[in-house]
């Protein structure tokens, strides 16, 4: 620091208002700890509520699935049957095929239609 700078430094330091009346460290620290604990409690309760909501959604979903008339394809049943209905009318259009009534006619047909076999 030059002489001018030192003088300026001293003058500014002298002029600067002193930080009087600083609150005691323990008081500020305890208040900060209180705020920290309160925020942790708040987050914990939010996390618990979120976990409860997740469990409730899972349980509810499970119950709804059980209530639904769910049918799955069973190989033995299919082999014995000559007709099949799609298990869900939500994703697939309702369709019923009778192997003896419908398909053989199509397969054995030799009638041409527009130059091609049906």
């Amino acid at each position, binding site marked *: 620091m030059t002489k001018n700078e030192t003088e*300026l430094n001293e*003058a500014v*330091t002298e002029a*600067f*208002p002193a*930080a009087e009346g600083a*609150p005691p460290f*323990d008081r*500020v620290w305890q208040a900060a700890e209180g*705020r920290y604990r309160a925020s942790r409690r708040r987050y914990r309760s939010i996390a618990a509520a979120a976990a409860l909501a997740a469990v409730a959604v899972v349980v509810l979903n499970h119950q709804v699935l059980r209530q639904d008339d769910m049918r799955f394809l069973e190989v033995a049943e299919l082999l014995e049957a000559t007709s099949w209905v799609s298990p869900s009318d939500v994703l697939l259009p309702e369709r019923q095929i009778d192997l003896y009534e419908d398909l053989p006619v199509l397969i054995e047909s030799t009638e041409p239609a527009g130059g091609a076999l049906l």
Partner: protein
Amino acid sequence: MRDRDVLENNPQITCSALEAIHSQVFGWALSRCNFDHAVAEDLMQQAYVELLNGNARFDNKSSLKTFVFGVVQNLARSRFRRLASRLRLVRRYEHMPAEVSDDVTEPDTNNLIWAAVRRLPARQRDIVELVFCREMTIEEASLVMGVSVGTGRVHYDRAKKALQAHLQHHWESGQ
């Protein structure tokens, strides 16, 4: 009173080290909020909460004082940015006058040098305070202010020249 000296989420910091710099940090917090004691204390509590929960993590890359000053500076900046935007919003809808009087007790503004410091742009004022009054180097002050050392030097140089010119002018006109 305190269960452990070392902070759980900030193992590099001890309560006793914080206590040692408490009054200096309070002084810095005070100047961040226009010398309002209540706001400064709240700001300090907030800074300690940040240290307690580990959001502000000290890793010994600087001195503890520099680090805590930086935390206070960031908190003050975000706090007043928030307040300023709210105030702008209120003014827009309430047609409030631009000048809002507050009860903050200003320090002795008659003091010529202090008045000259107050007239400096914010960054220059900050670096003058940090270097002259908080006994920091320009590097440390730049770290606290969140600017590069080069920028810090420029602010410091400009502030010094502005202060010298102002005081020179005043002394000459006074004689």
